[in-house]
């Protein structure tokens, strides 16, 4: 079933600005050619080269590919990205990205782990954090575990990352304070491509909270060059792999707050062993074109998974979420709520795939897509995609699309709120159901404030 909703005035016809297959192949070759050398070469070099070989048989997608039907990447393909250079930032450059209620901080700048900006000295015992480039080969079994790692953008990340972080939560360790993982980009005079990479290993019986954020900073040393053409354009092609061992628990928040000149393509690949619990709260707010693919594979019995997502798309933004939950064992539970707020002539896409093969009896899955359109030209394409082979399961899905109702606005006006405040309150209410799950009061209020101000602009 597919539900495409648009207001009557919106143009239904898709602009077919396809970049030809040949051009896309050339483009991919160019991206590979421009990849940075590893910070430290070693066994990771072999991992990168294997991904490179994998890419030789692949093509970058166009809107003719079912998975990219609504997400036209022509603007990306028309941009020539240069390799990213290491950037030097000061701690004040980071101010807008840090909050006092998130004291454990791990910072990655332009894809390279920045220990000088991370709070490694005050890490609670039970967690280890290290640079991916210098990680020992023992972590290799945790990398590239899933089928989805062969997908072209993910393989491109594997072939081109230069560094990243590995976070390991030890066996039976309970870490109460959230880990704030910041992936920040310092864009240059010319468009740059960055391949941030993270590996999260939650050992058996552990419990932790992770807040992963993506965004850009204007380095103070670069502030004078903003007028130059191409300034500020960048592409984040991020991959985070998460492995939850038996009975492990991870509360994960992922925000995408890239600069408006940015492109963002990201994958969150999660493997859950038996009795593990994983929750993911995503906030997709920035970038001109963005795509997020959370892919959760439930490899053990009796796992629990909660996906909560909020997308805000304004102006001419396009924000796409393609999620996958793959059940493989019996007695697993997954609940998903995805919300989109779309204003102006922006577009949001949600495709929620749930696979329940024969082996996954007693599965309990529910998916709900709720969407709020704030302008007559705003558009959302939402599509649940349930593939259920098992015969003893409980699976539900639903989708709603609404606008701010005059009745609701009038109710608030009749209590003394002006129209603008009434609309703000209603939008805030719609967003809060997701933002309230973010485990930092300061970050929650920052997110709500920026959502409301982006809608008003």
């Amino acid at each position: 079933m597919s539900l495409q909703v648009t207001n009557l005035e919106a143009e239904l016809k898709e602009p077919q600005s396809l970049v030809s297959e040949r051009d896309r192949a050339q483009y991919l070759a160019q991206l590979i050619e421009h990849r940075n050398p590893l910070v430290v070469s070693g066994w990771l070099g072999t991992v990168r080269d294997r991904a490179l070989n994998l890419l030789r048989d692949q093509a970058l997608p166009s809107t003719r590919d079912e998975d990219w039907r609504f997400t036209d990447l022509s603007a990306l393909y028309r941009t020539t990205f240069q390799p990213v250079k290491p950037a030097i930032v000061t701690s004040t450059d980071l101010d807008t990205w840090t909050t006092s209620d998130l004291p454990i901080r791990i910072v990655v700048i332009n894809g390279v782990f920045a220990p000088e900006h991370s709070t490694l000295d005050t890490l609670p015992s039970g967690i280890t954090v290290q640079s991916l480039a210098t990680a020992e080969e023992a972590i290799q079994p945790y990398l590239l575990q899933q089928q989805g790692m062969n997908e072209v953008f993910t393989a491109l990340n594997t072939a081109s990352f230069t560094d990243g972080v590995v976070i390991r939560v030890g066996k039976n360790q309970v870490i109460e304070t959230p880990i704030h993982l910041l992936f920040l980009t310092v864009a240059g005079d010319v468009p740059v491509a960055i391949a941030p990479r993270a590996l999260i290993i939650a050992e058996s019986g552990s419990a932790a909270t992770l807040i992963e954020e993506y965004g850009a900073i204007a380095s103070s040393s670069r502030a004078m060059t903003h007028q130059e053409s191409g300034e500020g354009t960048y592409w984040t092609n991020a991959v985070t792999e998460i492995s939850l061992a038996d009975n492990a628990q991870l509360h994960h928040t992922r925000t995408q707050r890239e600069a408006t000149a940015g492109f963002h393509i990201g994958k969150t690949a999660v493997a859950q062993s038996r009795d593990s619990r994983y929750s993911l709260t995503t906030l997709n707010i920035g970038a001109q074109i963005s795509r997020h693919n959370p892919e959760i594979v439930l490899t053990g019995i009796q796992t629990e998974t909660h996906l909560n997502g909020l997308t805000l798309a304004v102006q001419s933004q396009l924000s796409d979420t393609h999620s996958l939950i793959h059940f493989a064992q019996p007695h697993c539970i997954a609940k998903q709520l995805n919300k989109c707020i779309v204003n102006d002539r922006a577009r949001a896409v949600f495709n929620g795939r749930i696979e329940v093969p024969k082996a996954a009896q007693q599965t309990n899955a529910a998916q709900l897509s709720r969407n709020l359109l704030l302008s007559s030209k705003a558009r959302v394409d939402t599509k649940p995609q349930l593939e259920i082979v098992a015969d003893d399961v409980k699976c539900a899905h639903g989708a709603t699309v609404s606008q701010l109702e005059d009745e609701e606005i009038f109710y608030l006006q009749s209590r003394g709120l002006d129209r603008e405040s009434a609309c703000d309150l209603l939008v805030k209410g719609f967003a809060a159901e997701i933002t309230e799950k973010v485990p930092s009061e300061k970050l929650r209020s920052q997110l709500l404030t920026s959502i409301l101000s982006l809608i008003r602009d």
Partner: protein
Amino acid sequence: MIIENSDVILSVKDLSAEVDGIEILKGLSLEIKAGEIHAIMGPNGSGKSTFSKVLTGHPAYTVTGGEVTFKGQNLFDLEPQDRAREGIFLSFQYPLEIPGVSNLDFLRVAYNSKQKYKGLEELDAFDFDDLIRETLDIVKMNPAFLDRSVNEGFSGGEKKRNEILQMALLEPTLGILDETDSGLDIDALRIVANGVNQLTRPDNAVLMITHYQRLLDYIVPDYIHVMEGGRIVTTGGKELALELEERGYEWVTDKEPVEVGAR
């Protein structure tokens, strides 16, 4: 209570209004003075609820004729939110649910909107918390309701109590109760009516719109108006309700007997 020479709060002269091009109010006139409780009764479709929506400025209703002044100023010069801030309050027949917005936040935003308009001090979360906890008692509301989303998952009675809580907080000059009694069990009705009775003062007024005489046993009006075909056809004291209960609305209307629920 009827007070000699008290101020006129609401003056309605020959009011006509339409919705979707259909004329609903056809020359309605009414005067409400400080201290008074008025009840408007009448069959379904007589225009009672339309009257409340027109007074509060619902965008779907268009005024086509007549004059309304509220505390001496032309009501139609005021936006809906300014009517509220000036002191008109409507207890909705069907209060809306606002998911994701806590009742406490909603009440505080509403309270502060009025304070700001009046040039009075806005209350922060702590001071407001003290104020609202005192107010809760008027409608015997459990403080747990403050943390829930506005009206979401509330029973019918809880929604109406929440409306009266807002009225208690906003202290309107004119409180309009649009079928506040409909669908309430007797316990909820007693709580709601008791709440309203605690809010009546010599300097404010209440306009009840109801289909049932039962409400008037608990909130005793000074005047009862019977509405039919978009205008007030009879006005009397509280004893009029009993006659209506016994003899039906057709007793006071000139027209053919009206089938209740026909519209």
